[in-house]
């Protein structure tokens, strides 16, 4: 995708640019073969040219199915994986080109919350030690001493002060995720990237963590990038949502617009596939079923990457021309050649999109 088309339009406060500015970001993982000498036989294009802006104090939601590259994108922003190409500008500094000490210092301002609170906490490390480690790593002495700092953090995330001396196994999943969040905010960061922050939790507990994330944003003025497959959760917390498919952003819009008027066929299908806990709505709605599975990111389809599963696919352009991310409405960018026609109802989904037993065409 060319970097000149489609200006990202996340609304930034006047005078200050976006906190995070990603341009042309690519992450390709080499596929190596060979016993003694590694030969690169191909690349998995996990992220393949993404442009996005995240405004200060806002929440950017990234959604997509497993394997679409959303987690890799989040990690590349923090340089937990090395980007293959592109720039990641964090508050005016290009993180992708930083090295050594400068990168380490910049990392203090960007933190991550992981999906599985059991495997992201060291089982042999007490909560106190978990929360003090970031301070030690960055040589920060907290105001009022370490104990007070730990207690303040625990209080902010809604855990009792007595939790400090305990170990991760003594907590429930929701409480562990609170510890993970406390660790992420220990250094008072500007940007927090949350990768599936609630999907490992019980339904009744998810809302607690979602509310906590929202409260913290209000109190601490955090900027979030929330990565999740659950569009309902993402829509609830995000100001802007980016929908990813096979390493590319296919649609980006303010979250109310995205729900009211999804423009990309993939978003339309994704929306119609999400079950809504209301029998009346479920009975009325028309589901558009996507045939088959996500194609391999090592060998993505030509043209529009969605054309192999797209219910709105046309004879021309879809197979051989990569669609640009075009701005169709303020803040609403869509990568589809036929977005206007789909929106006007001039193109309707194929009949097979309504049949669960339809056999997808082999690629």
């Amino acid at each position, binding site marked *: 995708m060319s970097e000149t088309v489609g200006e990202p339009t996340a609304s930034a406060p006047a005078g200050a640019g976006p906190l995070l500015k990603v341009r042309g970001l690519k992450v390709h993982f080499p596929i190596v073969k060979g016993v003694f000498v590694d030969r690169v036989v191909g690349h998995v294009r996990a992220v393949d040219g993404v442009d996005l802006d995240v405004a200060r104090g806002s929440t950017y939601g990234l959604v997509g*199915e497993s394997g679409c590259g959303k987690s890799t994108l989040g990690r590349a922003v923090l340089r937990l994986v090395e980007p293959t190409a592109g720039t990641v500008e964090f508050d005016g500094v290009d993180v992708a080109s930083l090295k050594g000490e400068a990168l380490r210092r910049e990392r203090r301002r960007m933190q991550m919350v992981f999906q599985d609170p059991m495997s992201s906490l060291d089982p042999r490390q007490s909560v106190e030690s978990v929360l003090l480690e970031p301070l030690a790593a960055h040589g920060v002495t907290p105001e009022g001493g370490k104990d007070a700092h730990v207690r303040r953090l625990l209080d902010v995330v809604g855990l009792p002060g007595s939790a400090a001396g305990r170990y991760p196994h003594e907590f429930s999943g929701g409480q562990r995720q609170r510890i993970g969040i406390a660790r992420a905010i220990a250094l008072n960061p500007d940007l927090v990237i949350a990768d599936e922050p609630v999907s490992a939790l019980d339904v009744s507990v998810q*809302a607690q963590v979602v509310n906590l994330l929202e409260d913290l944003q209000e109190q601490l003025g955090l900027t979030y990038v929330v990565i999740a497959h659950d569009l*309902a959760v993402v829509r609830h917390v995000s100001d802007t949502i980016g929908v990813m498919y096979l390493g590319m952003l296919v649609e980006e819009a303010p979250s109310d617009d995205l729900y009211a008027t999804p423009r990309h066929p993939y978003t339309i299908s994704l929306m119609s596939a*999400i*079950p809504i806990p209301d029998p009346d709505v479920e009975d009325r709605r028309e589901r558009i079923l996507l045939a088959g599975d996500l194609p391999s990111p090592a060998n993505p389809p030509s043209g529009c990457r969605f054309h192999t599963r797209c219910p709105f696919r046309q004879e021309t352009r879809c197979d051989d021309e990569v669609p640009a991310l075009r701005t169709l409405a303020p803040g609403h960018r869509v990568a589809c050649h036929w977005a206007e026609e789909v929106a006007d109802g001039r193109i309707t989904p194929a009949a097979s999109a*309504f*049949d669960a037993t339809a*056999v997808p065409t082999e690629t």
Partner: protein
Amino acid sequence: MGTGTSEELDLGQAPGRPGRTAYDGPLLAVDDLSVTFTRRGRRDVRAVDGVSFAIRPGETVGLVGESGSGKSVTALAVMGLLPGRGVRVGGSVRLEGEELLGASDDRLRDLRGREMAMVFQDPMTSLNPVVSIGVQVTEVLRRHRDMTREQASVEAASLLRRVGIPDPVRRLKDYPHQLSGGMRQRALIASALACRPRLLICDEPTTALDVTIQAQILDLLRQLVRESGTALLMITHDLGVVAGLCDTVHVMYSGRVVESAPRRPLFGSPRHPYTGGLLASIPRLDAPRGAPLHPIQGSPNDTIPWETGCAFAPRCDHRVDACTTSAPALEVRGHASVRCWNPLPPPGRTAAAQEEDA
């Protein structure tokens, strides 16, 4: 929905099955089922505690609950798949009037696969990784329908095609790891449907799958129930799935059913505070944005034993004194059966009006 090739999905009853007499009760009747795990030196764990429900042919019944609520153990008990040692099963499970608890292993093996089949959550762990898909689907056909190898593989290919797997003849030779998650789940459903069972139990069949694949599988199940009159027991934690699929829903908490209702009353006016809490705590795609979520406090581990009160009481907003002193019984209130001392008011009535009644 279901246009085009719907007539192709011929998964109807096997015609002229011998020995079937007229029977007009429910297909599956579970009565006061309890499952206790015992271990020497440990306190007994009562995973399922007096669960009763029934399913009629062509009906879809949902069992909803969080992890540890006993919904999967209920399914395993119905299928007779619980281990023989360290487990005490009480109550009764009747399939077309025939008692399954205490039935011989031979009899259960005859019934499993032919009359009742189960689809598990994770298709990667429930398919044998070193046996090809073809063998795993055909073994059911050869065991129960006495088919020859050739007949069975023709039938298996057509089964795979019916559940939407492309190029089924080639897929029969594939091993589970060569299939994607959605395809594996389809293969598992195909083998569960191989003998046209009258009862299909699905334990979180779509939890491990992406939403677009989930929609495909749920539509397949819907079509199956509609066209072949299979009775479906759907076990899930996802209320959205239940809303679109189930006729009757049983909400479980800590081993007991706390609310049973047809789906419309259940979602329209939940009576048990736990059901109400679950519905209030999930963000809805179609709800106006910015409305705060109302989570249930605490975690599913914060329970008290049912003997001493209501297990949900420690987390409940509607707790009254009785909740921590005696266990409520499942009582019929309007359209629903509710196990609660202080249920949520029915729609259109305030809590105050209800107190006047009491």
